[in-house]
């Protein structure tokens, strides 16, 4: 057993899947199934919450029977993110919220100041916050101190598909917070990136674009599911240390055993 818990809730998969940008809801449903994801992130546009028929898409997502992690994607201020989080709680009936406060529309880099401010307010209101943050350790400490119990640092900018831009910083974060669930959120492009994050000891990864924009999203979802499992197994197994020279596995005649 290798259980993973977020806010006391045990989740069955270490792959969290986003639901935006798929060619159709039917293809999204196939991708969800083959990803074996247990948690789906759903980004809420305010206008999709009201009116008759405005919730058709959310009904389709809900019908998948997965845990829903609503997302404040596209919010550019703490206030906007808080308002969106409150709406999401009404729509999805969950205290969970993936908190994004975007600092710049082009880079989609988190505004870590607004993030901490919004997290403080939402935690005080009883939300269970999953903050999308950078790999900065001090920001991470602030987030924990205002009540967050999960951290979601970026691997690379949202949608860039670059993989782990700063492995050193991500390793430092893992070492610095050994007991906090850490999720690499954003920037992964291919399954090997996900395996890389898991081999570093991250508890889970969160994806969207890499699957949604693949030629065959459902197949790519399965590829990521396998990579996440492989990376996790490798981390738990304990990897050998890399070295610069070849090491023959049998004695070489004429060489001492050193």
């Amino acid at each position: 057993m290798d259980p993973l818990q977020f806010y006391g809730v045990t989740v069955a998969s270490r792959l969290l899947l986003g639901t935006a940008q798929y060619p159709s809801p039917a293809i999204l449903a196939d991708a969800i199934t083959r990803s074996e994801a247990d948690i789906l992130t759903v980004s809420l546009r305010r206008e999709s919450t009201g009116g008759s028929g405005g919730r058709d898409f959310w009904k389709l997502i809900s019908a998948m029977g997965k845990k829903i992690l609503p997302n404040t994607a596209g919010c550019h201020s703490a206030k906007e993110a808080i308002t969106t989080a409150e709406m999401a709680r009404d729509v999805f009936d969950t205290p969970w919220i993936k908190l994004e406060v975007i600092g710049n529309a082009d880079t989609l880099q988190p505004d870590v100041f607004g993030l901490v401010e919004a997290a403080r307010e939402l935690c005080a209101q009883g939300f269970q916050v999953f903050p999308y943050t950078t790999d900065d350790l001090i920001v991470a400490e602030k987030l924990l101190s205002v009540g967050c119990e999960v951290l979601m640092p970026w691997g690379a900018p949202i949608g860039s598909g670059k993989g782990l831009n700063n492995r050193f910083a991500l390793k430092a974060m893992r070492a610095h917070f050994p007991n906090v669930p850490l999720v690499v959120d954003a920037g992964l492009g291919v399954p090997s990136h996900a395996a890389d994050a898991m081999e570093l000891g991250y508890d889970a990864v969160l994806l969207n674009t890499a699957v949604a924009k693949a030629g065959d999203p459902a197949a790519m979802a399965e590829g990521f599911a396998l990579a996440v499992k492989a990376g996790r197994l490798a981390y738990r197994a304990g990897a050998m240390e890399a070295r610069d020279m070849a090491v023959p596995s049998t004695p070489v005649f004429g060489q001492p055993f050193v």
Partner: protein
Amino acid sequence: MDESSGFLSSFQAFLITTGNRYAMKIAVIGAGVMGLVTAHHCALRGGSVTVYERRPETGRGCSWYAGGMLAAWCEMESAEPLIGELGLESLSYWKTHFSHVVEKGTLVIAPPRDLPDLKRFAARTHAHEWLGRDAVAALEPDLAERFETALFFASEAHLDPRVTLDALRQKLIAEYGVTFVMDSAVSPDDINADHIFDCRGYEARDVLKDLRGVKGEMLILRTKEVNLSRPVRLLHPRIPVYIVPRADHHFMVGATMIESGDRTRFSARSMVELLNAAYAVHPAFGEAEIVETGTDVRPAFADNLPRIRRDGKILRLNGLYRHGYLGAPALARRAAEIVFEGKSFPEVER
């Protein structure tokens, strides 16, 4: 003998004037592009057609706000192969029956930092060629300064939806004697007809429970400072936009895609995104006049593919999504052949 032969010849004349058979009574509910091309295909096969529309004018639903791009190849970037098949047939329909279809292809461009998106687009589609700066300048001189590379889909075409809807209505009245009953939100139960085609789009959610709404917002700009000859698609990771040139220096800029059935409001955010994209294509759009803003809801099923559903003597044609002009003629032809020729089309009867 003389009398009876006289009776026979006049009876034969009667048969000839009525198309030599009983004219099937056809009712079409909904006068958007789906309803009008369905009326046309039924009239072509000798049906006696009446079109019912709840609004006072034809085509004022989401057909009115469409781009009118006949872009079967570009759409293959994200759509299923069926859309390409329907799109090619529909392109041929529009070219056969209407003279105002513009056959100048489609240009797909991206800002320099989004060139990976252009490569991705090229990898998912075919029937295109890569253009360098000189070739872009030859096709669209106004874009050459800003875009060094583009994808050109030479076989595509576009039409002005509003001109088309009007021409189609006039053709149906003048050439086929189709009757239009406006301001009339009828139920199929109230109609006396042999076959009823339900083409109400998103309004048909009362009977098509798996239909969902995908909201779209568009605007029409007017400027004499930009000249484009063909639709231009600007790729962007979050906000892909197209600009379609229309008569008298008008440009249709569209369209947002929002999972919502609310057709009432055009958000400031959407306006900013559309205008930003237009400005990125050419800065002179910043000085353009905003002539019109529009918003409506596209009807779609979960796989974003259109369907024909049989329900007794009612056929429900729906789920055109963003492929109204691209899909409707081909779907209507199939529906008409189901009724007039007893055929079946498993690819759309789901």
